[in-house]
């Protein structure tokens, strides 16, 4: 399928915004959904909505099959060894919080170190700040190179034998840079630490193989990869998940409940308290089927091409600064920029008048904004349904923005 054929499968893209055809360049915030996913959700609610793991009745069995079938699809998608290592959560934030609250609190004490990087999303910063405060552990930051990338030399110097947890994003939601998490995992393991990977921006865009990365935990969200909102995944190595306590307690996750003591179900269900996100999981399963049909290699190549094209075309706009590595081959489809003398909110408002959706603000990465020495930036992000034509429109919109603001001043 080429990008135009793919685009046809996303009904939302076929509309006008402010009198112009919609150009959606905010997929790093959330991706749009193909008909396959919308229909899977619709079908579930119309035909077999029922609670899972308890009903003896037919609908209950169908819902359970759908929900557990989705888990198997996720397992294959990230190449986990077993479905016991695939936990459904509310999203990347919940996944990372689960690791911090369960593994972190149980395994950290004073003198221990947690290592994260300057480019992390708030959801991979604050859970570690909180667990550091609670346990007396020290939170350390991996510095960034001038272009915003992480050097393995710095990783070797920052990660020590006192480090117990290293947590780094695989792809930056701001810089677009692809981080060498496999190599960082090796350094973490050499020092006796575990490796957590925030895969929110990588699972939708790259072929992820958790066994090859040899990470201990991997977190990602469905809504950034064509699936519904409200569901995500925590992958964890079985031997670690087995020794961890659940974070939420209640229905679904129990084995036996007494008056004063209870025991938990086996993996992965001990981490899934309460009625799970059944429709969400089924929707995520449909999204994975769709991505597999397109082919992750094809998708990755398409995005590299778009990133390279965008960086080339955008650099022709006078006064435009692009953040992050200049080499598009080490980038996913995210281009963050600022236009001289125009605040990113104003850029986004003018582009919106042209039907072009971009993100403006700090992108949930305030420490990175500080490192870049800016208060906010604008960001265009691409996915499988974007085309070079979208980028041409963005560039034309940016030229207009510049003209507009030089006129009104």
């Amino acid at each position, binding site marked *: 399928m080429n990008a135009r054929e793919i685009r046809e499968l996303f009904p939302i893209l076929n509309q006008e915004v402010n*009198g112009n055809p919609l150009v959606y360049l905010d997929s790093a915030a959330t991706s749009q959904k193909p008909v396959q996913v919308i229909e899977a959700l619709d079908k579930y609610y119309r035909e077999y909505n029922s609670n899972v793991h308890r009903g003896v009745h037919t609908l209950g069995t169908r819902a359970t099959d759908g929900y557990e079938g989705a888990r198997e699809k996720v397992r294959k998608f990230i190449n986990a060894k077993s479905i016991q290592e695939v936990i459904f959560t509310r999203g990347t934030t919940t996944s990372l919080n689960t690791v911090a609250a369960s593994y972190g609190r149980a395994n950290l004490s004073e003198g221990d170190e947690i290592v994260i990087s300057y480019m992390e999303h708030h959801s991979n910063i604050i859970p570690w700040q909180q667990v550091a405060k609670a346990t007396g552990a020290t939170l350390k930051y991996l510095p960034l190179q001038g272009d915003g990338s992480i050097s393995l030399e710095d990783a070797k110097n920052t990660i020590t034998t006192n480090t117990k947890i290293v947590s780094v994003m695989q792809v930056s939601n701001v810089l677009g840079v692809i981080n060498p998490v496999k190599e960082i995992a090796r350094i973490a393991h050499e020092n006796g630490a575990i490796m957590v990977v925030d895969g929110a921006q990588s699972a939708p865009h790259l072929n992820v193989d958790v066994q090859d990365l040899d990470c201990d935990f991997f977190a990602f969200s469905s809504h950034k990869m064509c699936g519904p909102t409200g569901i995500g995944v925590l992958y964890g190595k079985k031997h670690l998940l087995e020794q961890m306590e659940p974070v939420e307690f209640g229905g679904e996750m129990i084995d036996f409940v007494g008056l004063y003591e209870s025991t938990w179900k086996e993996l992965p269900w001990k981490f899934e308290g309460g009625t799970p996100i059944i429709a969400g999981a089924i929707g995520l399963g449909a999204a994975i089927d769709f991505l597999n049909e397109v082919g992750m290699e094809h998708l990755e190549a398409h995005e590299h091409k778009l990133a390279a094209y965008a960086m080339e075309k955008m650099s022709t706009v006078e006064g435009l600064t692009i953040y992050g590595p200049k080499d598009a081959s080490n980038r996913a489809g995210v281009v963050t920029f600022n236009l001289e003398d125009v605040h*990113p*909110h*104003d850029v986004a408002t003018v582009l919106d*008048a042209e039907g072009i959706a971009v993100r*403006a*603000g700090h992108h949930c990465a305030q420490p990175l904004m500080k490192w870049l020495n800016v208060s*906010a930036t604008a960001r265009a992000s691409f996915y499988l349904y974007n085309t070079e034509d979208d980028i041409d429109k963005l560039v034309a919109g940016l030229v207009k923005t510049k003209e*507009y*603001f030089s006129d009104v001043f």
Partner: protein
Amino acid sequence: MSFNNLDTLYRQVIMDHYKNPRNKGILEEDGSLTINMNNPTCGDRIQLTMKVEDGKVSDAKFEGEGCSISMSSASMMTQAIKGRTVEDAIKLSKIFSDMMLGKEYDEEDLDLGDIEALQGVAKFPARIKCATLAWKAMEKGLNEDSQ
């Protein structure tokens, strides 16, 4: 929406306040009120300092970072409240809030001056928070001071 509609947002007077902000700085005097406020969704921030004497806002200055709408609104706000009674300053803030919600507002005897240029923001829901940041800071500072 065409660029003509954008002109209802980016009025000349707004751009003038953005490029040449009035009352930029920090009041260092003893007894000045200091209010820091952020817009956590977008990173805009303002530090507002005000001096209240005999029930009147005798001086106000602001420092901050943000877009044209938030910074021009801060500039206009400080200009509008200087010399007003605390009561009138808070009343003005209510009028401004109604203006942003696109409601009919009661001008009464308060001269809105440049502030009326911000009326167009009401048509851009995503930008209302930018315009109201400085006003919220002002209202918070004066309300806390009078308690």
